[in-house]
């Protein structure tokens, strides 16, 4: 497992990744402070979302607690033109792509199935069907190849795709098929699996008997396993993978070893299947704490910066709180919108019949 930052914040050099980090200016003290701030912000938003679910404001929340480095690192490793293809637990990725946290809440509150424009933000919709997004990522990459957006040597224009999925989804057939397509067509795709140890209640050992990183090698797809709680290792691996893919060198696979600190979702009870001692053990490897220790060791962070981040995070949580209280339920007639992009007589007739049905009650109300 590649690690550049140990749990106590000690920095270990890594020739390839250090070169990549250096070339991209990705590990300057200013950048590191930025990642720290991002992780603090997204954790606050995550905790607030859990709290909003408990208050009945969200139907469900899937917490990404503990996976902040695995996501903030990967999100910032991508270049602006890259296309990211997330699961439903990718709040750090969304943050790094500039998707405001309140937009994530739309689907968990049940007012839409997704709150952003995938084309504009170059981020696929959250995917709930496990692994189903992986072939989309490969197909997008095949499109990039046909558009001449791969392998021209222009790092600012050549584009790659980051396909995200978890350890559980790695067992899905569509992920295996995606490896096959990506390998055969040398698609510019980096498969990035956050192994957070648990697929709801089932440990990774049930999904794979060998380190997940080995999974892709039978396809001839080079792979690495990195410490997913180490933002620098993640940045190095993902930037290196994406740059190699954009250069036309074919797909890569990265296993990012991390831990889902919270239950699967707010509907889950992790105490039924894993000991609290395991959570305590992983708390020691916390990605935010680790980066803060590293920055402190460099003398590049002070109490004032930490306090400012915490204030901003608190403000963000408050904003979310206010935002959700201002979120109106949509007009029920949207049920019929966008089923098709062109007129469809059955949907149109059902919409019309429902309007008629509702109008009887309006008449009754008026008659009273």
């Amino acid at each position: 497992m590649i690690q550049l930052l140990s749990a106590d914040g000690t920095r270990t050099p890594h020739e390839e990744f250090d070169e990549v980090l250096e070339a991209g200016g990705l590990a300057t003290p200013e950048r590191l402070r930025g990642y720290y701030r991002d992780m603090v912000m997204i954790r606050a938003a995550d905790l607030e979302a859990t709290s909003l679910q408990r208050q009945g404001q969200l139907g469900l929340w899937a917490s990404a607690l503990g996976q902040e480095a695995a996501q903030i690192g990967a999100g910032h490793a991508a270049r602006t033109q890259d296309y990211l293809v997330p699961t439903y637990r990718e709040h750090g990725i969304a943050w790094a792509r500039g998707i405001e946290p309140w937009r994530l809440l739309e689907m968990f509150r049940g007012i839409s199935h997704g709150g952003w424009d995938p084309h504009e933000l170059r981020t696929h919709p959250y995917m709930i069907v496990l692994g189903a997004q992986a072939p989309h990522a490969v197909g997008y990459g095949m499109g990039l190849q046909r558009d001449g957006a791969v392998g021209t040597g222009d790092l600012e224009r050549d584009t790659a795709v980051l396909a995200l999925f978890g350890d559980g989804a790695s067992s899905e057939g569509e992920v295996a098929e995606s490896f096959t397509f990506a390998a055969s067509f040398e698609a510019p795709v980096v498969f990035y699996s956050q192994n957070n140890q648990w697929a709801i209640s089932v440990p990774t050992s049930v999904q794979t008997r060998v380190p997940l990183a080995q999974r892709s090698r039978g396809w001839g797809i080079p792979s690495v396993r990195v410490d997913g709680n180490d933002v620098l290792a993640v940045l190095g691996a993902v930037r290196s993978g994406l740059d190699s893919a954009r250069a036309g060198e074919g797909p890569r696979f990265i296993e990012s070893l991390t831990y889902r600190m919270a239950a699967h979702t707010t509907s889950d009870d992790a105490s039924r299947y894993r000991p609290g001692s395991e959570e305590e053990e992983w708390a020691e490897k916390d990605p935010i704490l680790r980066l803060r220790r590293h920055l402190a060791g460099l003398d590049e962070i002070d109490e004032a910066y930490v306090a400012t981040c915490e204030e901003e995070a608190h403000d963000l949580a408050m904003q979310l709180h206010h935002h959700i209280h201002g979120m109106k339920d949509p007009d029920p007639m949207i049920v019929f919108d966008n089923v098709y992009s062109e007129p469809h007589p059955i949907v149109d007739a059902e919409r019309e019949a429902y309007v008629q049905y509702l109008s009887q009650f309006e008449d009754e109300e008026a008659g009273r």
Partner: protein
Amino acid sequence: MSIVQLPIAKAITAGLRDAMRADEHVLIMGEDVGVLGGVFRVTDGLHAEFGSQRVVDTPLAEAGIVGTAVGLAFRGYRPVVEIQFDGFVFPAYNQITTQVAKMHYRTGGRVRMPLVIRIPHGGGIGAVEHHSESPEALFAHTAGLRILAPSTAHDAYWMTRQAIETDDPVIMLEPKRRYWMKGDVDTDHRPELSPWQAAVVRPGTDLTLLAWGPSVPLALEAAASAAQEDVSVEVIDARSLSPIDVPTIADSVRRTGRLLIVHEAPVLGGLGGEIAARITEECFYHLEAPVLRVGGFHTPYPPARTEHAYLPDLDRVMDGVDRLLAH
């Protein structure tokens, strides 16, 4: 060259070729669609003309084929996917129902899915298991999909063009046992009739006989046979199965008072049941008899040497006609 005589398979080839010439974002994907030209030769010659970037021999994985087509559509392409046989669509069923059908809805209309999924469907070719099925009801039940089922070479050409031009995903059910049935194709003049509408292909007054795809020639044969007994059968080719054109069918039934629906798919849960319910609702006081259906049984598709018992044939359709007229 305005009107040419082509078998249905070649009319589809011509439709694909013209669509690819008209729009460079149209791609063909599937198993054996390249150099071989597909197991039914529907994509014959396209690889030679357009090359392997536009006519893509994919790995043998249906979910991967449809799933990567979704990604290509996100990137602005209009993929035409070939599923080799009806029974092999099921590995892609997840992608078709949870992704292709729902992406436009999920994204609030921000992302369109102009995919065409071509499926040679139906029985009667003496094939082994999984090569003779009619899964249209499964897809018609899924909102977000459109389904076209041409029965003539002319429709096969134009529906191929129109399915590709449509911004919604379209499943094209191609009548595989009629692939070599010839017909006149006018490639110069766009048909006035929308692909989403049914067509009265033989007018009549005593009874309406509704069919689609491979069953339309059978329905026409039955109408000709009935005419010899002075029974006037109106034949409707449904053409589109999603949306189903209820007004055209209802119009006919209001005149004839009787409806017989023929399809190869099992009657139980088949599209015929949905049409019968809608026609009963809309034409209740015009009906002289209950709507009847002739179709496959509630069995898996049987071994080829027994498929003649499973598939609607002239005798079973005429038996349906007799039962309707007995009321």
